[in-house]
């Protein structure tokens, strides 16, 4: 009887330690990044059949059904350009030049990795939203649902919740495939909080 109790104790401890540490690793490194450009982190193995088990699990957890890097490269930012966590209590400017890809988008997600509810169903800023090709830099703010802004609060309610931005580059140029850490990634500048 005592041996059986010891067996279950050992098994329970191993399960808690093993499963808990796995979930902690995936939560702390949601994309298993190997590319860093300012606040943006990416994985060169996303969607690849060569990806290791950690990368595969991390991608499935945070961006399921990702495409391979030849098709699309993904960068996630959970902090601003100063390294502070992105939070819906603050307002940010995101300055972005036309990205080296056939088409690109920047989308805001809540802490649950889903789109953030708002009355206008506005969730992203894309290459299509760039006003003109000869306008190299567009600035848009992430905060309340005002004109030209991508809201990261639910219908104007400031909840102070964390959020993240996902930059998708579809059909990235060869230069990106060769040196993804050399792209001129968007700057995320905090304007103020509260």
């Amino acid at each position: 009887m005592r041996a059986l109790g010891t067996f279950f104790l050992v098994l329970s401890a191993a399960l808690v330690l093993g499963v808990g540490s796995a979930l902690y690793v995936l939560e702390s490194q949601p994309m298993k990044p190997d590319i860093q450009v300012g606040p943006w982190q990416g994985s060169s193995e996303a969607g690849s059949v060569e990806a290791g088990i950690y990368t595969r699990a991390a991608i499935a957890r945070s961006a399921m059904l990702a495409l391979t890097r030849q098709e699309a490269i993904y960068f996630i930012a959970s902090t601003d350009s100063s390294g502070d966590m992105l939070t819906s209590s603050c307002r940010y400017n995101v300055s972005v030049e036309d990205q080296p890809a056939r088409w690109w988008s920047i989308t805001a997600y809540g802490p649950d990795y889903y789109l953030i509810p708002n009355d206008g169903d506005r969730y992203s800023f894309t290459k299509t939203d760039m006003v003109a090709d000869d306008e190299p830099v567009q600035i848009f703010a992430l905060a309340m649902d005002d004109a030209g802004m991508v809201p990261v609060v639910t219908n104007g309610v400031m909840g102070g919740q964390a959020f993240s931005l996902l930059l998708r580059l579809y059909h990235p140029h060869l230069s990106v495939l060769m040196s993804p850490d050399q792209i001129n990634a968007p700057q995320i500048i905090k304007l103020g909080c509260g």
Partner: protein
Amino acid sequence: MRVLRLIGLVLVLAVACHLATIWLMPRILLAAVTTTMQANGLPVNELVHFDRRTAKDRAIVRPSPDLLYSICLYDLSLGPVHIATTEMPQTYWSISGYAANTDNFFVVNDRDAAGRPVDILIGHADQRSSSADYLSPSVRGVILLRMVVESNEHQKVLGQFRNEVVCEPAS
């Protein structure tokens, strides 16, 4: 001494549990998604079209709100699956296959198609169907059609194109 042996045993088993959790994670997550979709009436080996994703959609994490998605849950247990399109629009679109472990084992996009219709056969790696264009490492998985939407008017046009795309058993 016995306590040390037990601690060692816990650590060895914990490492095994850790690795098993990491290995199983993509399989469990995709199985959960496809099972939920089927429970909600999504058929197998048939392409189903979805509207642009909004905050109400909770099926797949980090969806793109700028794409039109169509999904075919494939099952190769009875043979290959056939995917065909008519001539597709000159915008970014792709048809990609994901195995049960979420590996992206094939992609065909508008550049590959070069304005021509797509006609491909997906087989299972064990069946070694000589006519299959792509082999899935698993019997079940997901085929995803993505189309970039540039405006509401564009969305209507794309909707007409994707209505012509089929995903069906080959025989």
